[in-house]
């Protein structure tokens, strides 16, 4: 028995060794390096769906939207311009009629032509299936009809939400009617859509639990129509589960572009080991705003004076310089990204804005009656009750955990008893949505063509039992809500009209401080120039490129980056 | 003369000093003799038996020689003794119930034991089976594991195993104490059978059960507190013992076989001395009703009659 076992195990060992030896000798049949671009940082889990209507889960198959499925328009957030894409043009014929003309000669990857029928079909899906994310568009949309092969007409009610619609124009993926019209509701809304057929620059090749592989579509319409050819024949989108591995791979040049948040990149960039968009701080393009939501229905956060004192008390410089080691920039009190600075009213900011100032925080607190009565170093409320608060972020979100540590430290220094706590993601999410938190960080507004996107997050209304996607602190101001609604209904071409409303919003926001924008989370991007060069850089005079692979950003300049890449010598 | 032990002294080394478990034992054993070795627990009879076959630490050989069939055994050398163990001198240990590997079939174990002595087990099989017949064990036991056997079966099996190499001397240590009375008798008889068939030349039976000795032993040697007290033919020891201790031992015996480990000499006041620091002279003297002045010196083990040895100043010697 035992000798037999020994023999079996011995044989196993020999087999393993043999395989090892042979494999060592065999020449690796890897992907050709000069044709392959290795990227990482976008996918946080294994790929599971190629259904372009699943925005949340698409994060893990970052090319489904943008590579495979395309949108009518692309958008360049750096210059704030809409770029005609599948659409050759789009015009508001009247206040409630929008006409789109598609490009001629676009084909799906199976050879069928992409026509107005496909666009109409796609738009109508949201009318039939309320579970699709863009279904609310039909609240103000009357019908979408084809006008010939290439024309599409959108007819609206009297009050279309222009801002949202514009946003939809570069976010709704157009799907092929001939392959989708037979599908059940379930297949359309939640089906995995394996082996997707789209119109875009790349085709699905393969995937694993830690990667997505895309192959260039050599018959892509834009090669001829726009003279654009993505440089890499193959894109391997790697999901690194740890910063260690991601950082190591970038340093070694095994990964060409990492969009992970990697600690210590500033130092590596300074040493020339990796490249970043900016040569110095903040190194990264600002991508979204990290906002400290304050639960305004709980004392003392229901007191604007206390909220303003908080705004003065938080040492954002430490967040920027220590927690992030200079990889981010402090946010404007308006919360608007630099790309939307046209809508930030500097006069309002100058008059009402704030920056880190512990003395001012103390003064504001004292003036509002917050005093340290019992001498424990922390102020008590005007009615004498103790104040003990918590600031949260999800456990494991390391940069934010470091940030809330700074927040709690600086608040304590200013006399506000604030502890930093990191519950698990689910618990954090529940607390946030049910309003059972004190203060928490959130950054759920993506880069956008309009300030409305941010305000839609900050001042989501009406106030409900569950605030699922905004206004977590339940700040209630009808005046403000009306302003946000009014902004949504302004034509995106009416810059002055938007600015006027934004100015009013900002006046209330900076006076009342319903929440505190703290810093801009970066569009983390560190690249290696060992194989590919001509990455998007700050000094570049062609800004329509973003160094990112994040889901939903290909049509915001990510694809353009691929087209501009060049092989290193 | 098969076995001759001369002045054998073996101590146990402990932290608190040497335990003088066997002191100057000198005796001999004739060919074909079955000698019983008896005495209370801790009197050194197992020490004597162990030192003949496996004198391992903490036991320590102090002095003395052991001569078996004209050869001196290197008893102090654990390794050199291997040559003699099993072939010349063998043992049926006290723990015979647990002496066999629980995870090995009996036959396999016998085979491996034989092979370690360079003997082809297949050729030895007929003889093995003959001996199984001798102890009335079915041949199938070779295919059994020890746990499948009863205590008596195990005892007999160990007897067969231990004598496979036809040793000159067999030490049988408490072989009956764990068995019930009827089995005791059978096992004892088989032991005699081994001698009668000349599988072994002579046997030392270590026990405190005098009744068994009465049945099978030719001679009996009595030990007390590490010293030899008396040695004579079975008849003599039972009916006309000379040493005061033997006398007390015989009179205090229950009628049938004593099974319990602790034989207490109720008639003798006091306890056996601690061997860590034994009294000088005769170690029985403190309990001896006849003790007198000379007992302060160790009495010699002298032959007061042919084949009757006694270590007592009252018997033989100068004061005899």
């Amino acid at each position: 028995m035992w000798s037999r076992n020994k023999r079996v195990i011995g044989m196993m060992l020999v087999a393993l060794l043999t395989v090892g030896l042979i494999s060592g000798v065999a020449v690796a049949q890897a992907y050709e390096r000069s044709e392959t671009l290795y990227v990482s940082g976008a996918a946080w889990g294994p790929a599971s769906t190629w259904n372009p209507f699943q925005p949340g889960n698409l994060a893990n198959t970052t090319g489904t939207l943008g590579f495979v499925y395309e949108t009518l328009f692309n958008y360049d957030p750096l210059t704030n311009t809409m770029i005609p894409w599948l659409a050759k043009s789009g015009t508001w014929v009247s206040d409630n009629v929008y006409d789109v003309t598609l490009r001629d000669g676009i084909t799906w990857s199976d050879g069928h032509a992409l026509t107005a029928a496909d666009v109409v079909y796609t738009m109508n899906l949201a009318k039939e299936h309320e579970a699709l994310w863009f279904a609310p568009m039909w609240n103000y949309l009357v019908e979408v009809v084809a006008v010939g092969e290439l024309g599409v007409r959108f007819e609206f009610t009297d009050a279309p939400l222009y801002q949202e619609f514009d946003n939809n124009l570069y976010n709704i993926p157009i799907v092929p009617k001939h392959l989708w019209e037979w599908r059940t509701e379930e297949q359309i809304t939640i089906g995995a859509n394996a082996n997707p057929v789209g119109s875009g620059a790349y085709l699905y090749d393969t995937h694993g639990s830690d990667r997505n592989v895309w192959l260039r579509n050599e018959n892509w319409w834009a090669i001829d129509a726009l003279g654009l050819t993505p440089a890499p024949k193959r894109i391997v989108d790697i999901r690194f589960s740890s910063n260690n591995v991601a950082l190591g791979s970038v340093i070694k040049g095994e990964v060409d572009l990492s969009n992970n948040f990697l600690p210590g990149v500033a130092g590596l960039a300074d040493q020339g080991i990796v490249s970043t968009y900016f040569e110095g701080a903040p190194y990264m393009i600002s991508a979204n705003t990290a906002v400290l939501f304050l639960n305004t229905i709980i004392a003392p956060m229901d007191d604007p004076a206390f909220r303003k004192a908080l705004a003065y008390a938080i040492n954002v410089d430490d967040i920027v310089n220590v927690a992030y080691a200079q990889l981010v920039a402090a946010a404007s009190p308006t919360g608007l990204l630099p790309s939307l600075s046209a809508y930030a009213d500097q006069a309002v900011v100058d008059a009402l804005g704030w920056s880190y100032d512990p003395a001012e925080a103390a003064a504001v607190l004292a003036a509002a009656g917050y005093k340290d009565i019992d001498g424990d170093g922390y102020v008590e409320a005007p009615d004498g009750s103790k104040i003990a608060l918590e600031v949260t972020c999800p456990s494991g979100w390391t940069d934010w955990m470091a940030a809330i540590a700074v927040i709690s430290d600086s608040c304590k220094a200013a006399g506000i008893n604030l502890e930093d706590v990191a519950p698990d993601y689910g618990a954090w999410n529940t607390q946030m949505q049910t309003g059972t938190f004190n203060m928490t960080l959130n950054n759920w507004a993506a880069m956008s063509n309009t300030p409305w996107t941010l305000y839609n997050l900050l001042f989501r209304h009406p106030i409900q039992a569950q605030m699922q996607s905004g206004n977590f602190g339940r700040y209630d101001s009808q005046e403000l809500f009306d302003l946000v609604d009014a902004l949504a209904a302004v034509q995106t071409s009416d810059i002055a009209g938007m600015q006027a409303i934004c100015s009013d919003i900002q006046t209330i926001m900076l006076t009342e401080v319903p929440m505190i924008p703290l810093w801009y989370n970066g569009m983390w991007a560190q690249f290696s120039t060992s194989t590919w060069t001509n990455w998007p850089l700050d000094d570049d005079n062609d800004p329509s490129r973003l160094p990112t692979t994040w889901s939903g950003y290909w049509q915001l300049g990510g694809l353009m980056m691929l087209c501009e890449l060049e092989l290193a010598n | 003369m098969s076995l001759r032990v001369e002045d054998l002294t073996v101590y146990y080394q402990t932290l608190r000093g040497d335990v003088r478990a066997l002191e100057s034992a000198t005796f001999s054993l004739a060919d074909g003799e079955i000698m019983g070795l008896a005495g209370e627990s801790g009197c050194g009879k197992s020490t004597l038996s162990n030192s003949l076959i496996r004198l391992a630490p903490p036991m320590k050989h102090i002095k003395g020689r052991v001569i078996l069939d004209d050869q001196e055994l290197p008893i102090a050398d654990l390794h050199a003794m291997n040559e003699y163990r099993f072939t010349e001198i063998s043992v049926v240990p006290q723990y015979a119930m647990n002496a066999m590997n629980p995870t090995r079939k009996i036959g396999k174990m016998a085979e491996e034991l034989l092979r370690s002595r360079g003997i082809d087990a297949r050729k030895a099989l007929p003889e093995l089976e003959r001996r199984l017949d001798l102890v009335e064990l079915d041949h199938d036991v070779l295919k059994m594991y020890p746990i499948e056997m009863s205590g008596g079966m195990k005892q007999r099996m160990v007897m067969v195993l231990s004598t496979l190499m036809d040793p000159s001397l067999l030490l049988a240590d408490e072989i009956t104490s764990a068995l019930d009375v009827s089995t005791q008798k059978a096992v004892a008889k088989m032991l005699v059978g081994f001698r009668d068939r000349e599988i072994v030349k002579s046997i030392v039976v270590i026990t405190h059960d005098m009744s068994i000795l009465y049945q099978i032993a030719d001679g009996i040697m009595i030990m007390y507190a590490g010293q030899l007290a008396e040695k004579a033919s079975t008849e003599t020891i039972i009916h006309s013992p000379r040493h005061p201790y033997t006398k007390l031992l015989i009179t205090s015996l229950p009628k049938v076989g004593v099974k319990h480990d602790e034989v207490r000499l109720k008639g003798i006041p006091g306890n056996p001395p601690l061997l860590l620091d034994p009294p000088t002279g005769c170690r029985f003297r403190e309990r001896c009703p006849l003790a007198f002045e000379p007992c302060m010196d160790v009495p010699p083990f002298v032959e007061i009659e042919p084949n009757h040895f006694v270590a007592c100043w009252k018997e033989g010697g100068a004061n005899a």
Partner: protein
Amino acid sequence: MTRATKKKRNEFLYFAMRNNKLKIGAVIILFFLVLAAVGTLLTKNDPETFAGPMSSPPSAEFWFGTTFFGQDVFSQFVIGLRATFLVGAVGGGLATLIGMLVGFIGGYRGGVIDEGLNVMTNIVLVIPTFALLLIISAYFEVRGLFMESIFIGLTAWPWAARAIRAQTLSLRSREFVDLARISGMKPLRIVFSEIAPNMMSYLVMAFILQFGGAILIAATLDFIGLGPTQGFSLGIMMQYAVLWGALPLGSWWWFIPPGAAIATIVGALYFMNVGLDEVFNPKLRET
């Protein structure tokens, strides 16, 4: 105390003092215990504050260097040591206690109660308790060190219960227990005044093993982020080190000390255990 037991105790002490394994193990444990106790006096830095230069190697001021944020690794380390010992003592202690309870009751009472406890023990033994711990930990939004220790204790006991039951079984039929029973002693008293003292060595060794085991389990939980949600432990230090790229950034001083300390402490415990075994069991002493 009778002469015999006194002598016995002296003998244990003698062998204990002579046993190198026990001595080496004990010295190591003592060293870390002292470090955990007085370590905070050796550094003026709070483990959480950004006290020094970022990611700096060990120096005279920061003995174990600093973290990515410039926190003092040494002060985190000594705080983490405390957590380690706490988890070991509470988790290991609770596991031993439950193990004793189940083992004693099952072993002494026998019958249906024993059968029931046996089945229970075997079930907990078979269930991969770590997976269960993961889920339990994830259930609590905010977790503390003490709570973690309790959970570990609640899932780690079957091994001890089994061993103690077997020992109790063998002691149950001994004379002195019979005597106590005949004299009308209550079962619980028999267990604690007659049986338990006679297997003290066994209990001590079981506790040591459970102590070490609890430390390892806690470190594993902490490392994957299911440990205490506040404060430091050696496992949490390793987690942070890995999360903040200490490997590619070369900050070895951040992840080496915590793991080395755990391995050394638990290794020393196991070493002590074998030493104790040799002390209590004369057969095993080196000959």
